[in-house]
């Protein structure tokens, strides 16, 4: 940016680095810039759909002061400040794939507006650079031209402002960014690149000065106060910013002191409102002292004492004020976070009760009947229930009448509150009754716990230890940042234990020592059954031509054995490759990975090749259990995926060497959607058929598999091209696990479910996700959409983000329903275990977060994770509903 650099170095300007507070997402940042307050974390969720800003803010102040404001750019502003602008043109920021139109839409008004004289404030918000970062990252070749374009616009504005200035007051041109960009080009987190934004004041009112070596650090919230002071407006009420003094450095000492006094007064009022013990706050004390010395200074000034002493004294007062301001705003930003502890406690209690209930019903739910019933009627009529209800209501009344701060739970209607109280006490009573029942039952058969504990295999120990370890690790912020490491570690260990299990299964067969007769016999049985399973396709041939075919089956068995022994190692290698595809987390996120290498613009042909091979592999892995119609649909759909990626310019066709113009690829994407819906519809039709006409279970399993393959196709469309190998490896690992590990080793449904859950979690991170907001791929929500439509966009983004866990869960359902012949309650067990596996970490995490709410990293690490967990719970609930529906089908039939 040559012109801007020249202005910064030589011209009349001040430049700073403004530090933004996480979450570094557009809407909270605009709020921070305009109100000077620190928006809460919930604003991330409403980032997509911003309601009007009701707090006191700069724009409102300017409007009431009669200033005429014009705005062009991101329409978040228009939503935040409706009816504030005399003229505006909002550009929707959700077309992340569009780099030029969003900016042209702003620039086209510029010439006209700059000629006019009828405005006081002009706000322009350019989006192109942000979009380039989202789509192609900070090292893209598109960044350079975009910055040059911005520089030219800046030059145009500056020159026209200078030419206007001769008659009127000097103008001020502020250049700032709402947030930065992380190493991957995204934002939302708290890395240095995202938090540090430029802030540049250009005005002819400033003195020319020698180029500053290093721009100073200020807070982003400081801009609101500075602009308010500069425009002669009142500082907005909730602002925690302090005046950036160099900007008003050209004024006389008296005015400067007045400005900082105004700022300090506003901050101390805010402190008074928020803390009862404000008088003891060091910032407040400093401010009072500074105010006193300010008074003395004024006295001296009015006496006409105009000497050097006065100036020095003034400087001293100024310094006192600045110190006071700094302490005030830091103590304010610390205690702005207020917690509604009562509501939090109520929520936590309900969640913990549900978890306890789940845990208590564990032995019953995993029995062969797979029954899960919570007896509600006896506790409902017990005395205890009513007593608890009464007591909780009394507590509610006491808390709500005595609390001075606002409380969400108290502001709910009384009926709802009583309902919640009844829910809590009903859950409590059923927990107690469940405990009582367990005690009753456990009295007589006290002889066999030893037997049950000794029969634990290594897998069980690992599963238990892994679950507990993962839950405990959620208490440490670094383990949350690096949660992918936990999962990778666990699935690696799981693979090694599986490998050991396979070895034992295969090798101990050979040994015929009498001392191992029992184990060997067991293994022999299982191996025999396993081979039976494998050769189930050709049992007749096996039986009739036993003598002849024995050698060939022996060979097949032998090769099968070696493949099955090698499969854990192949899975391990796959996982290792995936791990280096996307570096995620915080500490090692900057390391180079294949994903970055592939997405850089020079590697387009490699990426195209990889994408094509991946799509081909996906087809081969998915097609074997599909019907012919859906096979054809799958082929066409996958072709559509490739042409979509080619249309938006991510990959190239081999015959197309010149880079043609980039479109949004809407036609291609919709073409794929048609096939996705078609396949899912065929699958659903099969499922319904199997339910209504009660056909054989093969129809049902085909139906399930078709639903699954439809989802795979959707994931292939939404994943970025460099992530397609994740999908391939996902399918590959599932196939190998099913064929060589789960079937032969005969794990029970609970173990299989937990393994699926672990792999699902690992794939969540293999996709490149992390526990920071920045890694959510928003662009997935706009595939095939003309403009931002809320519900499909949210659905698609959620699907693309949670594709890993979701696909593994659906595969679990496919697998378990194909195992129904062996264990009729398999699906029920799977559903229960899946729900339990999800609810244990979530419930414990909520308790942890509640207790850690004053932790330093609560906003940057723990809250995003809570957000992820919450969305994941919703998705799990949907999956469990699907499971139950399938199970219902089954029980209906039998």
């Amino acid at each position, binding site marked *: 940016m040559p012109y801007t650099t020249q202005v910064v170095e030589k011209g009349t300007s001040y430049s700073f680095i403004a530090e933004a507070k996480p979450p570094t997402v557009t809407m909270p940042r605009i709020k921070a810039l305009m109100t000077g307050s620190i928006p809460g974390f919930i604003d991330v969720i409403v980032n997509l759909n911003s309601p009007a800003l009701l707090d006191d803010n700069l724009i409102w102040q300017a409007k009431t002061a009669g200033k005429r404001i014009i705005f062009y750019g991101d329409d978040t502003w228009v939503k935040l400040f409706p009816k504030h602008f005399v003229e505006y043109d909002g550009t929707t920021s959700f077309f992340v794939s569009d780099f030029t139109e969003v900016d042209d839409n702003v620039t086209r008004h510029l010439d006209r507006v700059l000629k006019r004289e009828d405005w006081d404030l002009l706000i322009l918000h350019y989006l192109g650079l942000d979009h380039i970062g989202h789509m192609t990252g900070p090292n893209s070749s598109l960044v350079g031209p975009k910055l040059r374009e911005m520089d030219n616009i800046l030059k145009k504005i500056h020159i026209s402002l200078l030419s206007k200035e001769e008659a009127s007051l000097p103008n001020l041109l502020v250049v700032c960014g709402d947030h930065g960009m992380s190493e991957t080009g995204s934002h939302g987190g708290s890395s240095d690149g995202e938090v540090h934004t430029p802030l540049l004041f250009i005005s002819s009112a400033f003195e020319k000065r020698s180029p500053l070596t290093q721009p100073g650090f200020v807070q982003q919230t400081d801009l609101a106060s500075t602009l308010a002071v500069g425009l002669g407006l009142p500082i907005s009420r909730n602002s925690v910013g302090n005046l950036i003094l160099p900007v008003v450095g050209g004024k006389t000492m008296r005015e400067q002191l007045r400005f900082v006094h105004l700022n300090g007064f506003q901050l101390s009022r805010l402190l008074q409102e928020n803390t009862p013990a404000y008088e003891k706050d060091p910032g407040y004390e400093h401010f009072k002292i500074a105010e006193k010395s300010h008074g003395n200074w004024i006295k001296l000034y009015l006496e006409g004492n105009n000497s050097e002493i006065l100036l020095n004294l003034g400087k001293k007062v100024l310094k006192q004020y600045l110190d006071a301001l700094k302490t005030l705003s830091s103590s304010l930003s610390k205690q702005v976070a207020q917690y509604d502890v009562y509501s939090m406690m109520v929520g936590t209690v309900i969640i913990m009760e549900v978890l306890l209930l789940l845990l208590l019903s564990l032995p019953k739910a995993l029995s062969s009947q797979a029954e899960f019933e919570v007896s509600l009627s006896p506790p409902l009529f017990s005395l205890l229930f009513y007593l608890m209800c009464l007591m909780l209501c009394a507590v509610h009344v006491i808390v709500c009448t005595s609390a001075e701060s606002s409380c969400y739970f108290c502001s709910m209607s009384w009926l709802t509150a009583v309902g919640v109280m009844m829910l809590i006490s009903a859950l409590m009573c059923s927990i107690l009754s469940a405990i009582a029942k367990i005690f009753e039952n456990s009295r007589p058969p006290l002889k066999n716990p030893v037997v049950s504990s000794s029969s634990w295999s290594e897998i069980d120990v690992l599963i238990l230890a892994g679950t507990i370890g993962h839950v405990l690790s959620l208490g440490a912020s670094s383990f949350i940042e690096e949660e992918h490491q936990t999962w990778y*570690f666990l699935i690696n260990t799981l693979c090694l234990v599986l490998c050991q299990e396979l070895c034992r299964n295969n090798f101990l067969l050979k040994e015929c020592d009498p001392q191992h007769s029992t184990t060997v016999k067991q293994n022999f049985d299982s191996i025999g059954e396993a081979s039976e399973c494998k050769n189930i396709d050709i049992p007749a041939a096996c039986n009739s031509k036993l003598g002849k075919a024995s050698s060939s089956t022996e060979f097949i068995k032998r090769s099968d054995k070696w493949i099955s022994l090698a499969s854990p190692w192949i899975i391990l290698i796959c996982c290792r490759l995936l791990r280096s595809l996307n570096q995620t987390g915080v500490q090692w996120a900057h390391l180079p990975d294949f994903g970055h290498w592939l997405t850089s613009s020079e590697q387009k042909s490699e990426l195209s090749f990889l994408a094509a091979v991946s799509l081909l592999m996906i087809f081969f892995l998915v097609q074997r259990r599909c019907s012919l119609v859906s096979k054809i649909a799958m082929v066409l759909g996958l072709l559509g995926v490739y042409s979509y990626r080619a249309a938006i310019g991510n990959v190239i066709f081999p015959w197309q060497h010149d880079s043609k113009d980039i479109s949004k690829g809407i036609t291609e994407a919709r073409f794929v959607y048609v096939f996705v819906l078609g396949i899912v519809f065929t699958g659903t039709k099969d499922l319904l058929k199997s339910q209504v006409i009660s056909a054989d279970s093969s129809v049902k399993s085909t139906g399930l598999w078709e639903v699954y393959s439809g989802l795979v196709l959707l994931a292939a469309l939404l994943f970025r091209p460099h992530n397609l190998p994740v999908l391939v490896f996902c399918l590959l690992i599932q196939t190998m696990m099913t064929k060589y590990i789960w079937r032969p080793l005969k794990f029970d449904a609970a173990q299989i479910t937990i393994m699926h859950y672990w792999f699902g979690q690992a794939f969540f991170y293999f996709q490149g996700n992390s526990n920071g907001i920045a890694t959510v791929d928003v662009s997935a929500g706009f595939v095939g959409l003309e403009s931002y439509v809320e519900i499909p966009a949210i659905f698609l983004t959620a699907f693309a983000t949670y594709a890993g866990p979701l696909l593994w869960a659906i595969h679990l359902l496919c697998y378990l329903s194909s195992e129904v012949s062996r264990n009729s309650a398999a699906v029920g067990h799977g559903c229960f275990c899946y729900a339990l596996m999800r609810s244990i970490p979530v419930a414990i995490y909520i308790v942890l977060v509640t207790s850690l709410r004053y932790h330093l990293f609560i906003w940057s690490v723990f809250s995003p994770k809570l957000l992820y967990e919450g969305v994941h719970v919703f998705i799990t609930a949907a999956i469990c509903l699907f499971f139950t529906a399938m199970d219902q089908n089954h029980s209906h039939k039998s």
Partner: protein
Amino acid sequence: MKEAEVRRLLAANLLCVFSIILSAVVPASFWDGFTVFGTHLAWLCICSVCVSTLNIILHLVLKPNLSPKRSSFAHKISRFLKCCIYFFMSCILFHAIIVLYGAPLIESVTETFLFAVLLSTFTTLQCLCMLGPNIQAWIRVFSKNGATSIWESSLQITTMCSILGAWFGAFPIPLDWDRPWQVWPISCSLGATFGYMAGLIIAPLWIHWNRKQLTYKSR
């Protein structure tokens, strides 16, 4: 008989523990700047060499597996060579597993490989001393209830403990404490070492405790 053997086992194991402690302390006296963290690679080498020589010497002195027949010299040589090859292979295998667990593939190969050597010393070398290059015997010992003597039980325990130690040693790596021992592979190798030492101490005690239940069948 059994009591005496347990006592012999305890003495041998304590000697091993002692040698590890010495390997961490002694070199500092004649090599300025030697610390376990600072010059970790050197310590890895020294510790591996110490433990392996001690193991071999102990094996030659104590002869826990009474070889029934006197074998020829050529047979012994081939056996020794086989042992060497097995040891090397186990190093490679451990290296591969560590890389699969997420260790960098190209950078810090030396560190990873030396860690693999250390793990092999703690696990494979002992097996080689005790059981010889005989895969069948290995599988027998490491399957459930496969040990036929207290030496083999001890082998099971120490091997398990070293590997578990290395496994647990990986836990603190993601923490952002920026401590010197969080650098790859220090925490893991320390974990393995502590696990091995714990195993050496636990094994005789455990055998002593459970001597009633442990009934070794003769082969």
